[in-house]
């Protein structure tokens, strides 16, 4: 019988089934400082061990400062110290600050070759969906489940329904992976994926680079699906080959052969099938307080009166009040105070290259504070080897150390009340980047262009031939 990618990953990981639940084996458990302390404490209180420490990998990302120097926030320090002590006590690998391999958990997993097609991967973080870009089944879990996985290497899971989200047509020039996923969320709504595992398909997906696929899968949780997956192909294998934890030699050949068979069979069926037309999409900018409140950069802020559902209308009115925007206001009139290029959505080397290409030889608007925060220490080194840091710094950007930074405001990088930010992160929720802060989600290219102009501009309309110096 024809099977989907999801079924080919799920089925062989079922240890047993009872009461309609599957006990699913976990191949890789990623851990960070914010959602693990209580889980380790639970193990200690119950006198339990970590069942497979060698399948567990930890890093520090959420509350690390991105400027050099010690952690001055005593609560953040206590949490980071707890992670160090916990990983030592339970024998877990930690890529801690200063190790050279630290970074955002969803950046370092693929980068180190830990993330592989066909694996089941969990982490106490909703953006674990990112790893599905390589054909893994990867989803976020809460702290109780973190403790359960530490103790048993398994999770009880209800078998999710399956959905194919097909991007139909060819990607127009100048349209990024971020625009694809923001555009899709705008069309389907922020709860369309609840209860589903989504497979992204279509020609536009096949043509994406590995890192672009990560951007798409990263935002799966923003429309309610816990996991998003993309069938592994030559792009996946080329990305993984030679990475530190990827199989080597004859093992590599065998692995690739196995991974090739993971793609959904012709005729495989899904519980739902959604088509998003790519040809009509243009660069996207969010205007509201969830990622589905999004419009083309050529558009304007919608009028709440245009919504049929009274709940949606009220939500739009609240969003406009919070964002201090008027119905009908052109997106390109909106001025910004800060620019954040970073986060597990858009902080990889290709993101930084794309932003640098817009910025090169130009200057950040004098009223704008602009940050570039590489997703990992390794991305930072590579960017410096390529001279991208000079391009950013010369233009007036701050070039920071790796971490989650301004995506979620758990570290010193935050918005002040009332500040407006063009951000390459994944959530524009109220207060996400700092109480009273106003977030507009965009691609790295659009964020870079906004930094130069002090407002949103259509990056496709800019003359961004590299300036020769």
């Amino acid at each position, binding site marked *: 019988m024809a099977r989907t990618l999801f079924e080919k990953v799920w089925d062989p990981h079922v240890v047993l089934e009872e009461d*309609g*639940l599957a006990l699913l084996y976990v191949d890789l458990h990623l851990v960070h400082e914010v959602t693990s302390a*209580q889980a380790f404490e639970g193990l200690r209180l119950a006198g339990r061990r970590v069942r497979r420490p060698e399948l567990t990998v930890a890093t520090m990302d959420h509350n690390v400062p991105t400027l050099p120097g010690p952690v001055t926030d005593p609560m953040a320090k206590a949490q980071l110290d707890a992670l160090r002590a916990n990983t030592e006590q339970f024998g877990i690998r930690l890529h801690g600050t200063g190790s050279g391999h630290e970074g955002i958990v969803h950046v370092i997993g693929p980068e180190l070759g830990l993330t592989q097609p066909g694996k089941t991967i969990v982490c106490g973080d909703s953006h674990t969906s990112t790893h599905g870009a390589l054909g893994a089944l990867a989803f976020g879990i809460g702290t109780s489940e973190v403790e359960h996985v530490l103790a048993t290497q398994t999770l009880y899971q209800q078998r999710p329904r399956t959905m194919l989200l097909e991007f139909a047509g060819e990607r127009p020039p100048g349209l990024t992976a971020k625009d694809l996923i923001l555009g899709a969320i705008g069309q389907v709504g922020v709860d369309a994926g609840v209860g589903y595992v989504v497979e992204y398909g279509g020609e536009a997906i096949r043509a994406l680079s590995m890192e672009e696929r990560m951007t798409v899968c990263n935002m799966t949780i923003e429309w309610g699906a816990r996991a998003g997956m993309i069938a592994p192909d030559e792009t996946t294998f080329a990305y993984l080959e030679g990475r530190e934890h990827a199989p080597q030699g004859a093992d590599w050949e065998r692995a690739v052969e196995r991974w090739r068979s993971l793609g959904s069979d012709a005729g495989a069926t899904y519980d739902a099938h959604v088509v998003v037309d790519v040809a009509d999409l243009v660069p996207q900018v969010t205007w509201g307080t969830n990622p589905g409140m999004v419009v083309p950069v050529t558009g304007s802020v919608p009028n709440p009166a245009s919504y049929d559902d009274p709940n949606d209308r009220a*939500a739009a009115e609240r969003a406009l009040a919070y964002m201090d925007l008027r119905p009908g206001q052109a997106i390109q009139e909106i001025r910004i105070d800060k620019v954040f290029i970073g986060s597990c959505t858009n902080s990889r080397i290709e993101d930084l290259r794309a932003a640098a290409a817009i910025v090169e030889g130009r200057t950040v608007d004098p009223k704008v504070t602009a940050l570039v925060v590489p997703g990992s220490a390794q991305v930072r080194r590579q960017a410096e080897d390529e001279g991208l840091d000079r391009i950013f710094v010369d233009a007036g950007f701050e070039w920071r150390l790796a971490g989650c930074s301004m995506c979620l405001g758990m570290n010193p990088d935050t918005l002040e009340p009332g500040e407006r930010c063009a951000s390459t992160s994944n959530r524009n929720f109220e207060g996400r980047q700092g109480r009273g802060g106003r977030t507009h989600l965009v691609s790295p290219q659009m964020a870079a262009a906004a930094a130069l102009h002090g407002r949103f501009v259509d990056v496709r309309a800019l003359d961004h031939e590299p300036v020769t110096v």
Partner: protein
Amino acid sequence: MKPLRTVTGRVAVLDRPDVDTDQIIPKQFLKRIERTGYGKFLFQDWRFDEDGNEHPGFELNRPEFRNASILLAGRNFGCGSSREHAAWALQDYGFDAVVAPSFGDIFRTNAGKIGMLAITLPEDEVGRLMESIDLDTGSEMTVDLERRVIVAPDGREVPFAFDEATRERILNGLDDIALTLEHEDAIAAYEATHSIA
């Protein structure tokens, strides 16, 4: 986990769609390494202004919703971040049950793990329950997990579905890790035949 069979108590209504976990418990409280004491930070930015004064317009600050143990909420409640702190904060504040047309998947799982009932009902049914609440005096309701029914303020019974394994665990206050470890042989047998790179 304490066993929970029935919740009877005052009802609060938060009729907004897509309430995300960043609102339920803002990020600054995620730096704590304890599992308890989050209730006073619940909906911090919606409940309080920057000086710590209550926003009179926020639903949970209404006098008739005080000391509520059941929350009626809008669709996609608890979307966003995986932070279990959101479920901890609601429970610590006093909620033993949340009833909504749909939930963020991770939030719903987290609630089940700590013995807080996340109950899904059709949107029009949640709407009828909301309408049955007396907004002047407040109302009481019962959520009966044993019989899987909600008893509305007017006495009407509304059945709900609830996953059986989670129901058993909550009714009996069982530790799910201990339950899983009863299958340790099956896990070990799986490991013996599946090597992981």
